[in-house]
């Protein structure tokens, strides 16, 4: 008789915080106490609160323990599991109210969420297909195969109003309909799991935490458009997602959810995993198809769209992971149910990956139309150190920033576009007063310049030129004409690039120029970085009055840039200093200043 279940988060974030060692220690301690018959330890996908990792949830009570180290395990077993006393010191404290919360359901972070795409992620063992089935897994596939025609499946998806969660927000049902209409005998279903948008990690979490939902949805899509072969294209940067997905594929095949005559019907469907090799442009759908075919991931002009001419020139539908993760619930609960969630033109929920300067980083799923303020302050717990909110980047390197003035904007596809940003895949990077917006623009452009495949010159040469100008500005060598030049180049690149990567590459520069022009001007005219972040414009100095000459800084300096004699004030050699800031962290007397 099992009296308690312990969920151990094993998403990539918690694994990097050593959650697997915690799990091993739990198993050892339970064995010592002879509790293995009563208590089950389950490794789940990402629970969502990555910065609090490793995270444990103890059921039936639902007690939420955070930042659990190996050394804390003995106390959890002896106090909580044997004596029934909650270990207070490992509970979560709300950052703003400082209230200590015992149960997972009490946390604002979870309370405000509406989970459809993430409904299994963090709740089940992704390696156990039976847990997926117990949560109505593969029921939607069964319903589709036994009760619905391909036409009624497509009409249900169309009526739900589901739009692609990977970038542009194209209506999913419409895409499926285009491919279904084709009379071609060979068609393909593709899942874009090449989530390259920096700051977005919902697709990784779903693949790691709920891989069967993708298999099920792709089989449904195959039935709807008349395809018997699918491909999942996952980026190589996600080894854990690849491992879990491969194992899920095997189990789905064993149980007859894939292969010949799925669930005893006349429908057959096979699925293959293809792994990328580190190229951001492969997230662009035509480049992704090229890569699946075994070529360089170079995009091609559209039209023809993949739904007409895709993989090996056959009609192909491509949806991203989060889009597919919505399909089973829509089939089971109906288009009308889904349609009631969200805003007029953006239906359902959206998963946001919150990162940067925010107290609760991690994944949250909320109804479309939730405001930025709710996300940052209510769910995200505000900015660390009570610093001032400056901006939030959405849409990654293709998007733009939202400012304080946009805090009460309802986040959906169309409002974000009207503000000069975009939904993208839902990465939300929060920046505070210490983030330099010119540096951020430079940073995103450096990224797109590197990732430009080089096929068309506006993107290849244009982004390089823009980057050179931005580098000049952050190095304090900007000239007054630079702002004009940036704006002109941006408009050329947007108008003339071949694919979405180039067409959207200038967005971060345009968006920061529109909202933070004064910061550009401060770098150019005053040779000053108002946020105190640009390395060329800051210097580290030792305050001779507070330095006691202990030499700790010199010992830790990785570039031997600190010199001095013990018991006398030390000094920093500016030309050798790599500006890493280790000395500031190490100095016990706060004698090192950064300005």
């Amino acid at each position, binding site marked *: 008789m099992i009296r308690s279940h312990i969920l151990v988060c094993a998403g990539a974030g918690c694994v990097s915080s050593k959650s697997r060692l915690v799990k091993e220690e739990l198993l050892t301690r339970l064995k010592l106490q002879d509790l293995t018959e009563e208590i089950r330890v389950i490794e789940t996908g990402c629970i969502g609160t990555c910065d609090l990792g490793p995270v444990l949830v103890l059921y039936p009570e639902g007690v939420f323990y955070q930042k659990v180290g190996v050394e804390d395990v003995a106390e959890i077993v002896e106090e909580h599991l044997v004596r029934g006393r909650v270990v207070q010191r490992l509970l979560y404290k709300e950052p703003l109210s400082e209230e200590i919360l015992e149960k997972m359901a009490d946390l604002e972070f979870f309370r405000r969420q509406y989970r459809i795409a993430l409904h299994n992620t963090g709740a089940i063992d992704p390696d156990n297909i039976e847990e997926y089935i117990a949560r109505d897994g593969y029921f939607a596939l069964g319903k589709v195969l036994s009760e619905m025609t391909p036409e009624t499946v497509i009409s249900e998806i169309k009526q739900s109003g589901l739009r692609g969660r990977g970038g542009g927000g194209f209506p999913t049902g419409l895409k499926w309909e285009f491919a279904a209409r084709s009379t071609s005998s060979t068609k393909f279903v593709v899942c874009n799991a090449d989530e390259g948008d920096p700051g977005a990690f919902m697709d990784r979490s779903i693949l790691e935490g709920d891989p069967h939902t993708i298999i099920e949805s792709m089989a449904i899509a195959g039935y709807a458009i008349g395809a018997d072969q699918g491909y999942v294209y996952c980026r190589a940067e996600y080894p854990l997602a690849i491992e879990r997905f491969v194992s899920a594929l095997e189990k789905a095949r064993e149980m007859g959810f894939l292969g010949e005559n799925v669930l005893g019907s006349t429908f057959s469907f096979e699925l293959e995993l293809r792994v990328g090799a580190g190229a951001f442009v492969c997230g662009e759908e035509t480049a992704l198809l090229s890569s699946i075919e075994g070529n360089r991931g170079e995009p091609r002009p559209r039209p023809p769209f993949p739904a007409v001419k895709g993989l090996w020139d056959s009609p192909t539908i491509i949806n991203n992971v989060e889009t597919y993760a919505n399909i089973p619930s829509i089939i089971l609960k109906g288009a009308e149910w889904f349609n009631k969630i969200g805003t007029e033109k953006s239906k359902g929920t959206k998963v946001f990956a919150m990162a940067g300067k925010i107290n609760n980083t991690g994944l949250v799923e909320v109804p479309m139309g939730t405001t930025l303020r709710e996300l940052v302050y209510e769910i995200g717990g505000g900015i660390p150190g009570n610093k001032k909110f400056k901006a939030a980047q959405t849409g990654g390197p293709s998007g733009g920033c939202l400012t304080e003035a946009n805090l009460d904007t309802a986040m959906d596809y169309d409002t974000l576009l009207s503000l000069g940003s975009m939904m993208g895949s839902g990465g939300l990077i929060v920046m505070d007063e210490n983030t330099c917006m010119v540096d951020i623009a430079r940073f*995103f452009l450096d990224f797109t310049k590197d990732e430009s495949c080089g096929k068309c010159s506006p993107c290849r040469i244009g982004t390089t030129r823009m980057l050179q100008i931005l580098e000049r500005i952050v190095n304090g060598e900007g000239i007054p004409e630079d702002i004009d030049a940036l704006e002109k180049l941006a408009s050329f690149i947007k108008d003339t690039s071949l694919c979405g990567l180039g067409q959207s590459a200038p967005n971060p520069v345009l968006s920061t120029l529109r909202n933070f022009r004064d910061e550009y001007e401060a770098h150019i005219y005053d040779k000053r970085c108002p946020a105190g972040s640009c390395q060329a414009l800051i210097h580290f100095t030792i305050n001779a009055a507070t330095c006691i000459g202990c030499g700790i800084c010199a010992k830790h300096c990785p*570039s031997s840039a600190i010199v001095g004699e013990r018991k006398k004030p030390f000094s920093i050699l500016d030309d050798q200093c790599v500006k890493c800031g280790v000395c500031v962290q190490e100095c016990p007397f706060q004698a090192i200043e950064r300005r």
Partner: protein
Amino acid sequence: MLSTVKQVVTEHEHQPSRLLEILRCLQTSTNYLAEETIIQVAKELDVPISQVYGVATFYSMYSTKPRGKYVIRFCESAPCHIEGAAEVLAAIQGILGVDVDETTDNGKFSLELTSCLGVCGVAPAMMINSTVYGNLTPKKVQEVLMTLE
């Protein structure tokens, strides 16, 4: 070497569309793709050498230059950047005495930049071979690098 190529290509049913997988398998033991490997793959798949070389040089995870035992892939994405990645990277460069895309003289470490590792909740982050390390500080990377034999 030649027999490994033959074996890997056969495992992938001589399908040119599986070129990325084939190169990934061949790279696991040595961390790079030698010229003769590329030529042999082209021969086994019956495709031009330029096709294989083109793919091997397009994707950042393949290398045609020898790499160290440990490949450090340092995340250069925005969330890591905001959380102080530049300072951590400077510390790694200082400790190892190499620049990005270089290998230490003893052949132990290669330092590369990667696009987002998707562990932004624990930024700044890096991946060494296939292990992810998060919440990095200049001090923590010193400790991590010291523990690798």
